[in-house]
């Protein structure tokens, strides 16, 4: 597969796609120091090599933004927050339940919050979101396959990614209280926007 339009003149990398990075290889350029590795950070998933030519199209994260994102993420229970965020999506925007007909009882806020399938799926979604936190400098790549999945198999309107992102921010705010400062919120609003964009990118 070749890219029809290249805005840059240098190579994007091997035509075969992402190249596996050795497990002990260099960390991603731009990852802030002191980010606590989350669960599964040692997994050997293939990742694209970071080409200097791609810098122009990358999202830029300041050191402060990275620090704010990491420090919040380090204190998040993925299981709890994930379940909470997904439950709230289904409660606050009930039309999103259209994607979860097989989940059983979603008939009331209590039912949604207590639903084990919602909890499990919420954890799954937020775990996946964690990949963005660990790969701030290559979010587009990180979610490339998930984007295709959401379009081709799941048929999810990308607006739902924006809704869930905003809900996640509210969940974090309720969880962290005053610690969720305006600076924190700004960094996280940016992150959820970037993730939503990445998930929508492969839609056709």
């Amino acid at each position, binding site marked *: 597969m070749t890219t029809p339009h290249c805005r840059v003149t240098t190579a994007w990398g091997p035509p075969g796609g992402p190249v596996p990075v050795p497990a002990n290889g260099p960390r991603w350029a731009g990852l802030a120091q002191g980010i606590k590795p989350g669960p599964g950070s040692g997994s050997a998933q293939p990742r694209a090599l970071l080409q200097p030519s791609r810098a122009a199209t990358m999202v830029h994260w300041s050191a402060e933004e990275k620090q704010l994102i990491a420090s919040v993420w380090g204190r998040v229970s993925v299981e709890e927050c994930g379940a909470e965020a997904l*439950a*709230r999506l289904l*409660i*606050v925007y009930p039309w999103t339940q259209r994607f979860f007909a097989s989940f059983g009882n979603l008939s009331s*806020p209590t039912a*949604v*919050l207590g639903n084990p399938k919602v909890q499990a799926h919420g954890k799954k979604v937020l775990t996946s979101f964690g990949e963005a936190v660990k790969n701030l400098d290559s979010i587009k790549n990180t979610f490339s396959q998930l984007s295709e999945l959401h379009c081709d198999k799941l048929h999810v309107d990308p607006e739902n990614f924006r809704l869930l992102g*905003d809900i996640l*921010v*509210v*969940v974090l*705010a*309720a*969880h*962290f*209280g*005053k610690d*969720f400062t*305006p*600076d924190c*919120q*700004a960094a996280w*609003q*940016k992150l959820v926007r970037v993730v939503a964009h990445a998930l929508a990118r492969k839609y056709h």
Partner: protein
Amino acid sequence: MLTGEDKKLLQQTWGKLGGAEEEVGADALWRMFHSYPPTKTYFPHFDMSQGSDQVRGHGKKVMAALSNAVKNLDNLSQALSELSNLHAYNLRVDPVNFKFLSQCLQVTLATRLGKEYSPEVHSAVDKFMSAVASVLAEKYR
């Protein structure tokens, strides 16, 4: 549509603010300017530094209007009629920005109320802000 339960939750939630409306309004506005920089384009004359009197003052005004709306949930159109005119003919704020303020108000409320910002309250506030936005944009065209 706001249900009876939604209205009750809204009144309860506003009741919990205990006179801190000015602070809540200022906080929400500041967060909006910070998370959604394009919203600042409507306030080129404002001092946007943290703790600015103008931002605080305006936050207080916005929150007072919302508090008034909460007291008049059965007739939002009437309660917000003047503001609706103002936004349609003078301010002409693009309606997309109402969503940004809604998000930031919710974040502010959530930071203050923590667990009390339950999914039911979250839903009621989101619906309320959506209703307010509709009224404000009603006369745009």
